[in-house]
């Protein structure tokens, strides 16, 4: 009976062999997949159990993890939650969602490869792994000024440091309180999240960088003017049509000036005057003169079409291609299908103020380890040269005139030269227009560039109206920066 016993031993070896294989498959080959499953409570608990890093404005944390005495070990707390909601995002059962929480999840949670050596040393010292802290570029005074200005309305405001690209303010309204969806009561979080998600005013959306993109209206005339000046065929003193409307080729439709009044009594204006009074016929003609390609190229040099991350992904702004002449005329005054983010328009203003150079916008000033050592520090990156510096100077002079004696007088700051441009962007007939303002100050060496949009706040067809609503908000933001 020994032979069958030996064969039985072979069978036993095969049985145990199959168990070794199945164990290997589960614990090694497919382990990552299993750990990544959404319904994996262990993964959820262990990510919660980490001491997630802080998000800082200056030295003040706007998001921090505090020990809690439940099974999740830590509770995420957002100081001034609604003010910084779109900057922080929130951290809930749905994972890190929106803002820096999502964009820098691996750094905050401590799993990033950038923290590799730290993790190895944690392994040997037995120290609990800690996430890195992220110090933002935000200026709380500017952020608060923007939030105050947009209180109770829908819209967005962005402020940049023109010479570096550092984001000084990033505000989107309406907002929400990230604390309300970061609790440890699953049912409560689900209800509140569903309510926010279904709210028709979309408070979860960051309108400043990733909303449904806005038509820019007249603030886009800066881009059209830049295209004209860069082409060399046009100077600030070039004469353009300035009647109450512009006849368009190929169609019976016309391009009317705002308020249906002529830009000048003579029916002709210089480019500078066209900018000062925001003359639609003049810019419509300028656009048709330089052509669609020149306009698109100019927009691209300002950053249109680029997918940048700040580190949150920014939806690229766009100028439509394949336009016919009437569409090109419309696009030249920021209508038709031109679509922008407020951040992109702030970049346009900043580039004009920065001698034509577009700096990459960023929100992370530095990444700081739990032991306060700096792991990564932001450096300024030039994205492109939008216009030569002499053109930038010409554009700046025109924008200064806009604020001194044109449509943007409400943005004046005593003792400081401000450059700006108003906009009233129509979107659909019968609805109120979006009010726009882009600006930078001081004009000769700007410390801040801003873009402000207030949704459905301006009388359609009235250029003054846009400046009246958005201009003061831009002024308060710039004052907040300059008064420091």
């Amino acid at each position, binding site marked *: *009976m*020994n*032979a*069958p*016993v*030996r064969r*039985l*031993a072979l*069978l*036993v*070896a095969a*049985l*145990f062999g*199959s*168990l*070794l294989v*199945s*164990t*290997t*498959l*589960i*614990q*090694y080959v*497919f*382990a*990552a*997949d*299993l*750990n990544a*499953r959404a*319904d*994996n*409570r*262990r*993964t959820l*608990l*262990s990510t919660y159990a980490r001491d997630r890093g802080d998000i800082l404005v200056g030295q003040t944390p706007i998001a921090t993890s505090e020990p809690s005495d439940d099974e999740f070990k830590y509770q995420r707390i957002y100081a001034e939650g609604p003010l910084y909601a779109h900057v922080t995002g929130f951290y809930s059962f749905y994972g890190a969602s929106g803002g820096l929480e999502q964009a820098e999840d691996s750094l905050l949670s401590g799993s990033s490869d950038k923290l590799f050596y730290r993790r190895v040393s944690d392994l040997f010292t037995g120290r609990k792994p800690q996430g890195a802290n992220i110090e933002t570029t935000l200026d709380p005074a500017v952020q608060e000024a923007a939030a105050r200005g947009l209180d109770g309305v829908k819209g967005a405001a962005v402020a940049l440091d023109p010479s570096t690209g550092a984001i000084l303010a990033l505000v989107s309204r309406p907002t929400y309180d990230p604390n309300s969806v970061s609790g440890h009561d699953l049912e409560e979080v689900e209800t509140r999240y569903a309510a926010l998600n279904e709210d028709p005013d979309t408070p979860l959306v960051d309108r400043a960088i990733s909303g449904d993109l806005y038509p820019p209206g007249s603030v886009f005339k800066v881009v059209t003017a830049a295209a004209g000046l860069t082409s060399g065929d046009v100077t600030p003193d070039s004469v353009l049509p300035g009647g109450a409307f512009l006849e368009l080729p190929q169609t019976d439709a016309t391009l009317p000036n705002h308020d249906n009044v002529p830009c000048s009594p003579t029916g002709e204006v210089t480019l500078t005057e066209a900018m000062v009074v925001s003359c639609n016929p003049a810019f419509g003609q300028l656009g048709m003169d330089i052509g669609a390609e020149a306009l698109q190229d100019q927009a691209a040099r300002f950053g249109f079409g680029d997918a940048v991350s700040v580190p949150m992904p920014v939806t690229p702004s766009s100028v439509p291609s394949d336009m016919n002449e009437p569409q090109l005329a419309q696009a030249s005054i920021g209508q038709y299908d031109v679509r922008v983010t407020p951040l992109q328009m702030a970049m346009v203003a900043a580039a004009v103020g920065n001698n034509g150079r577009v700096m990459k916008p960023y929100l992370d000033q530095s990444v700081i380890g739990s032991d306060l050592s700096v792991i990564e520090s932001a450096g300024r990156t030039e994205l492109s040269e939008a216009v030569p510096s002499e053109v930038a100077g010409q554009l700046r002079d025109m924008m200064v005139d806009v604020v001194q004696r044109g449509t943007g007088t409400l943005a004046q700051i005593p003792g400081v030269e401000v450059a700006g441009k108003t906009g009233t962007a129509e979107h659909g007939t019968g609805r109120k227009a979006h009010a726009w303002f882009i600006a930078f100050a001081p004009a000769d060496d700007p410390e801040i560039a801003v873009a402000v949009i207030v949704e459905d706040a301006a009388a359609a067809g009235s250029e003054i109206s846009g400046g009246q609503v958005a201009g003061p908000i831009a002024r308060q933001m710039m004052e907040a920066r300059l008064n420091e």
Partner: protein
Amino acid sequence: MSVVSSPAPRKGRNIELVLLLGAVGIVGLAYLNVGLAALGTVPPGIFALTGGYLAVAIAMHLVLRWRASYADPLMLPIVTLLNGLGLVMIYRIDIAKGRSITEGVALKQLMWSALAVAIAAGVIIVLRDHRLLRRYTYLAGVLGFGLLLLPLLPVIGTSEFGSRIWIRIGPMSFQPGEVAKLLLAIFFAGYLVQTRDALSVAGRKVLGMTLPRARDLGPILVAWGASLAVLVFERDLGSSLLFFGLFVAMLYVATERISWIAIGLTLFVAGAYVAYLIFGHVQTRVLLWLDTFSPDALAASDQLAKGLMGMAAGGMVGTGLGRGRPDLTYFAESDFIIPSFGEEMGMIGLFALLMLYALLVERGLRTSLGTRDGFGKLLAAGLAFSLALQCFVVVGGVTRVIPLTGLTMPFLSSGGSSLLANWTLVAILLRISDHARRPLPEVGQSGVADAQTQVVKMP
């Protein structure tokens, strides 16, 4: 010059003692580790409990020295280590569930362990020769089948968690399947050693296989019917597979005819397939096995899914004892103790455990090879194979090699009846191994002749 006498066979008792100290040492360290990792302090009674466990193991060792001095020296240390690690993991789950040591399951399990070792020692002392068991072949058969089907009786049989494999008398509950496994192995060995000649008579030859005569198919059909009854009425695929597999394996060892395995496998697969077609609970088990993460399966039970995620969380090296969350899986201390080990000791730790079991089985099969009597050979092979098959059914169930069943892991899982049965099983294996390794008294050399004197000893 040549030496006529064979070298003195090694008893291995001193090796056993050293290994035993190592095994208890590992268990003590694991206990300390769990306390430090999960509680942050030295666990309660570390010296008393480890010392007590050592005393129990040493007592068993002394019994072996006294009554079975040639017994296999590896079995006791392996089983001591497995049982001890099981205790540690059960205590670790107690901590996770917030139970103190006095109200937890671990201390009960320790008492059961002591009782199980006492019974095993009793078996070694009372059972001087395993061949005595052959006298009780049919008694064991009746008791074995009786116990197997006992949970089907009204009143005392209870259905828990989908399987009717428990009997409950007052506050006592008992899973008779484990004891039945032992008794049936004795019955099969006794029965087959008698009938093996008849069963191996050749019948017709089909497809190169010599089939047995039709009239000899009776026993296998009875065993098949019983195992299907267990599958269908007790809803216990594991026990069903275990008993039928055990019977077929022993039948094969007894008759050396591969055709019995073919017939057995065919019968079981056919029976199981019909049961799958007819019974909803079998279909659910299969769904859970094949498509664990489908919404339907998760709605039926997410236990297997949770166990798998626990093992994945452990990965290659594990979270470390006391550092994982094995308590998130139901029955983490009994049916799912293997995923608990997988989570906290990792793939490497599980490999080590599986190797311990494989080694134990190997020692059992080696005992079978070395045994001179047919009954002992069959019994040892059967007992060893039943251990292997049970490991396969349990670990294969939680790692999706086969559908999940309700069996417990021998020596590791929480549960008194399982411990008693498996320690007794090892005691019988030890008894047979003592017989297998003990040198035969050489003809003409006995009594006085064994006593060497200085005078005749060669330099």
